[in-house]
């Protein structure tokens, strides 16, 4: 009897341990061979298109959503769900004609009402979206601001669906970059009835989200570390999608990601820092420029010294960006002496807006002797012999701040910089509240237009207290002009920022990816924030 008891106890312990460990066997199948495994840095915060406000989430949503316009593998802006669009003479009414036969992944027809509903959902305060600024500030859709502040009801937003294939957007101010802005996943359609039937659980699991993009969500849970998608046969361009499925695997630890890539567990990974340096020269390494600029923001109000242009010029010309990118960051950043990065915005004649990256070297290039001259002149004008400045920096970027402080204090006699390293959330509070003398900041453009990178210097709404009437007039005028005239205006705006030393560009960022043999067609959009996935292929080894 005792033996039987012991045996039973042993069996129960075994069953307990087995059940605790999941007990499910490995059922990975051979069809995984042709599926693509992509490593991502973090879990998506949300997959609800109207709630997305971070690039990590957008990079996931792009697989199962689709927008009116999109970027193709050659980074050209082309109609996606739209067939074409008409802009009224005053630029205030934009009419999109949708492609015929569009369908959701459950077979329901996708109509213009789904776009109207999505736009209204984005601005609706009940949705609690952090991305409302896209609709109130980046493009000023009629009544958006009043709806956001509760003065008007959501139904009064300037978006209309006169018939199933026509979607009309009415604006308060023309928006020359509207189609580029509408490539963002926030502006993808939302199925009204389905969304309402899901209630607050909309887009929290594969069962509560419909796809209109190249893939269908197959496995997902909030803050998932592994997301699986399968090809969407109802996607309008399904013939072009060759991959049967994609797995997005969070690989937050860079070394683990590298080992996964080297052992064929991941096909595409993003590399930075030391790992990127190690992978340098590898044929599988691809670099993609990103519209992300690290800047040194100057508070034009907090400190009398910083109102002096010579002082600002001296600071700008005392930073040896080349040496910092070579010795400190070593990989992933390149020196920048202008606001607009290369390969970001293409002018009407097809040329790169920022093809000449040395254009503002006169004001930004490292020249310690000239910097010392400007500094002496500035001190003389101010009637002081030394200046103390608070230099606020995000904890993650302290190493750059240390290098910049050393260079500035060496080159500018009498300058005392106090670095204030802060956690990200406090650093953002200081930036938004303009509570600093100098702050190391980074701007990532939401859409492919130079104005996206001028946002930090726009008078009252700026993060740096830079208030220049000419600049603001030009900004307003940039919404009313098109083509070559507008490009000239945008150049003048950048001229103004650089000659005034309104802010100091430091480094441009580039993303580096390791892409396995047999994988082709990987591209990112001009802002570098979302992958272009329609051309992705993975051949069997």
């Amino acid at each position, binding site marked *: 009897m005792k033996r039987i008891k012991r045996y039973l106890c042993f069996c129960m312990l075994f069953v307990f*341990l087995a059940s*605790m*460990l*999941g*007990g*499910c*066997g*490995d*059922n*990975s199948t051979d069809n995984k061979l042709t599926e693509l495994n992509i490593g991502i840095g973090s*879990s998506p*915060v*949300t997959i*609800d298109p109207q*709630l997305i*406000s971070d690039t990590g989430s957008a990079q996931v949503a792009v697989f199962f959503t689709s927008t009116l316009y999109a970027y193709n593998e050659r980074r050209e802006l082309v109609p996606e769900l739209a067939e074409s669009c008409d802009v009224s003479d005053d630029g205030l009414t934009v009419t999109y004609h949708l492609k015929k036969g569009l369908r959701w992944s459950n077979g329901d027809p996708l109509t213009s009402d789904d776009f109207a509903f999505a736009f209204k959902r984005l601005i609706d*305060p*009940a949705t*609690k979206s*952090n991305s*409302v*600024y896209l609709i*109130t*500030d980046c493009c000023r859709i009629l009544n958006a601001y009043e709806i*956001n*502040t*509760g003065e008007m009801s959501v139904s009064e937003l300037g978006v209309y669906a006169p018939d199933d294939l026509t979607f009309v957007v009415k604006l308060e101010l023309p928006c020359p970059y509207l189609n580029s802005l509408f490539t963002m996943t926030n502006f993808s359609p939302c199925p009204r009835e389905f969304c309402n039937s899901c209630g*607050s659980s909309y887009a*929290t699991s594969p069962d509560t989200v419909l796809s209109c993009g190249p893939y269908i969500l197959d*496995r997902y*849970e*909030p*803050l*998932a*570390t*592994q997301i699986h998608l399968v090809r969407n046969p109802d996607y309008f361009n399904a013939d072009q999608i060759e991959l049967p499925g994609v797995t997005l*695997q*969070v*690989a*937050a*630890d860079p*070394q*683990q990601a590298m*080992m*996964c890539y*080297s*052992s064929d*567990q991941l096909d595409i990974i993003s590399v930075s820092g030391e790992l990127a340096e190690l992978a340098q020269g590898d044929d599988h390494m691809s670099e993609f420029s990103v519209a992300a600029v690290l800047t040194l923001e100057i508070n034009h109000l907090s400190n009398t010294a910083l109102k002096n242009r010579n002082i600002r010029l001296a600071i700008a010309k005392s930073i040896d960006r080349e040496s910092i990118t070579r010795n400190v960051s070593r990989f992933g950043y390149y020196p920048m002496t202008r606001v607009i990065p290369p390969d970001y915005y293409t002018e009407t004649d097809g040329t790169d807006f920022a093809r000449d990256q040395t254009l503002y070297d006169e004001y930004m290039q490292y020249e310690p002797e000239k910097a010392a001259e400007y500094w002496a002149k500035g001190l003389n004008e101010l009637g002081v012999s030394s200046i103390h400045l608070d230099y606020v920096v995000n904890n993650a970027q302290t190493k750059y701040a240390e290098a910049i402080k050393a260079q500035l204090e060496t080159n500018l006699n009498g300058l005392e910089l106090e670095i204030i390293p802060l*956690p*990200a*959330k*406090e650093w*953002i*509070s200081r*930036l*938004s509240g303009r509570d600093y003398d100098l702050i190391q*900041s980074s701007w990532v453009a939401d859409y492919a237009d130079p104005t996206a990178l001028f*946002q930090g210097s726009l008078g009252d*709404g700026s*993060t740096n207290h830079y208030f220049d009437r000419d600049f603001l007039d030009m900004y307003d005028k940039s919404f009313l002009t098109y083509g070559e005239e507008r490009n000239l205006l945008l150049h003048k705006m950048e001229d103004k920022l650089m000659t005034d030393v309104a802010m100091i560009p430091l480094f441009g960022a580039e993303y580096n990816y390791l892409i396995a043999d047999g994988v082709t067609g990987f591209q990112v959009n001009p802002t570098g924030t979302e992958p272009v996935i329609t051309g992705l292929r993975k051949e069997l080894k």
Partner: protein
Amino acid sequence: MGRYLRKRILISVSILFLILLILFLLLQFMPGSPFNDAKLSEEQVEALRKQYGLDQPVIVQFFKYVGNMLRGDFGVSYSISPNTPITTLLVNRFPITLKIGFASLIFGTVAGVTLGLVTAFFRNRFVKILYSLFTMLGIAIPSYLFAMFFSWFIGYKAELLPLLYDFRSPFVSTVMPVAALSFSVTAVIARFTKSEAEDVMKSDYVMLARCSGLGSGSIMVKYILRNSLIPVITVMAGLLVGLLTGSLVIEKMFSIPGIGGLLTTAIESNDYSVVLALSFVYSALYIVVMLILDLVYCVVDPRVRLGGKPE
């Protein structure tokens, strides 16, 4: 016993309430807000605060929160997974953390007790060196270094196990994390077991048992093992809570969707409701574990009488 239990439960509930209140007040002093985004205007931040009820007085927010919590509603996440009910986040992630934590504890305890007893029983040099080496390494080396070691040799070089947690093969995905976490448990338990077993072996009742002619195996199981386990149980409670809260690095390394990472992400993002819910769950867990521990004492050592009056 019943009276003791009632008293303990009452004290536990009061402590939990106090913890919640202190946490709620402390979170108000944290810099920043859940809506840290330089692109949001002040009006937009204010509108979001209003939508989530964060514009109300703290005390109103607190009692609303407690009221909802008693109905099983922990609220929704503000920033790390906007509008997702926190219960959904917990239900999805807690079982995985529990599985890995319990598995590490059980494997570590079995290995630690065995190692401690063997070292105490067989007093030869080789066993002692092996024991010292194992316990020193287990305590001195953090679990993530073991994880890196396993990842390199077993996951990458030998390609025997997946390097990242895979939902399609959850069993094999948890082997390396469990092994890495078990090392320190093994070392701690082995040290306690050895020192306690050595004391027990010197005791009068063990000598009496030997003199009575009982076999070594019987003495080991009935007398030495049972009496050595009492301090081990105390240590296990702390280790379990530590495993559940402190496996953050391991979770990040193997991309395990557990709750270790959830808490730190929530703190970094000022996601008050998630921080509160997780802190509450952890506190409740710790209190329950300590209560169970007291009850287990009674079973292991009949001399212990909880809450009883002295005779």
